[in-house]
């Protein structure tokens, strides 16, 4: 199971790549494996304000809908329209082309409460 070293992780299986005050958010390799074939993805609208742990997006597999939570609070500044057009990107490239949205981080302190790769690996037993 791929758990990249340069990311932080939420217990609910989202990853965030932090660059300055901007975070790029997606779901982990483990999450896409568990969800299986993803057939629908709805990234949040630009300008949406979310708190840490709040629902920001929805993805659906053939069998179930799953909420995607924002790992940190902030304002959505970009949404990946490519996953809307081709939801399977979440399965094939969860840490790359399958990113879901970018957020302007309100409180950088919240990043410290997220898991590092080792802690997330321990959570999923990888």
């Amino acid at each position, binding site marked *: 199971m791929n758990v990249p070293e340069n990311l932080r992780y939420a217990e609910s299986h989202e990853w965030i790549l932090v660059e300055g005050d901007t975070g790029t958010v997606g779901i982990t390799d483990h999450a896409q494996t568990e969800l299986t074939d993803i*057939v629908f993805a709805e990234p949040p609208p630009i300008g949406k304000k979310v708190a840490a742990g709040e629902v920001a997006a929805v993805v659906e597999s053939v069998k179930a809908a799953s909420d995607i939570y924002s790992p940190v609070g902030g304002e959505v500044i970009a949404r990946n329209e490519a996953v809307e057009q081709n939801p399977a990107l979440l399965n094939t490239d969860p840490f790359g082309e399958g990113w879901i949205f970018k957020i302007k981080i309100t409180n950088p302190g919240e990043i410290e409460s997220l898991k590092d790769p080792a802690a997330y690996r321990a959570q999923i037993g990888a």
Partner: protein
Amino acid sequence: MVDFAGWEMPVQYGGILGEHKAVREQVGVFDISHMGEFFVHGSGASEWLDALLTNRVERLADGEAQYSLMLNEAGGVIDDLIVYRLEQDSFLLVVNAAKIDEDAAWMRGRLGEGIVFEDRSADFAALAVQGPQAGTVFEKIFGRPMPSARNRVEKVEGGHVVTTGYTGEAGFEWIVPAVRAVDAWRRTLAAGAVPCGLGARDTLRLEMCYPLNGSDLGPERTPLEAGLGFFVDLEKADFVGRGALLAQKSAGLPSKLAALMVKEKAPPIRSHYPVWADGTVVGETSSGALSPSLGVGIAMAYLPTALAVPGREVEIEVRGRRFRACVQKKPLYQK
């Protein structure tokens, strides 16, 4: 893995989309051991079943099968099932897993003179081999061609093979003693069948508009409302529920089970989503999915009869938003 009527069953083995495609284009195998097997013997068995079920058992020749329904006195559906005539006075009934106990109690409570009823669900496993290449699997296992006719039952060592299914594809179901289940499963895989779970079974049957009891059928709905009148012989002298069906037919059906197709990009449709027409809620979906074959949302819903007409536009609500959909002719998927 999920709990299904007390059975721990896989939703998928390798992915629902791939399994669905395998059945439509090649061949897949489903473990359907959860389904119930009843045996009915004795002189008068045919007449007894005809008094309990909607379709006409009397018409079956030895080795033939038919889809049928068992109703309550109000004409509501207890279960849908397949009746196989093994011999003149010997029948096999395959029923839904969740209804085994209820069906058996209902039938035992109405047992006729000289009728032997056995619930042997625990003794038998069953595999459904489905897809355009099912015949190849059959030949590899049994060393002879698969019967070309649908709805046939033949004895094989220790069990039965029947040319029925729940996918809309050619294929057969192999009912084997439970002790031989693992061997039978391995033989179908070795013969080229792709293992398929409950997820693909559901999307395949929904594309064909085959109803699922508990979702699309239930004690509050009659088979006439479900669009299953073809399997109800109202000409028969009597069967449980017949009076209620005749009354409903003359009064006019209050609702009909409509097939719906979504006409714009939308989240996958699931059961219990509200259906709107002309600004009001007129029903809810009983089943729904993103059709893997068609790439669009599909569903079934009981709608007021006047609305359940192919071409009628409705809307399906998903998480507070409404998406355009249209009533379609059944089945939703055609080769």
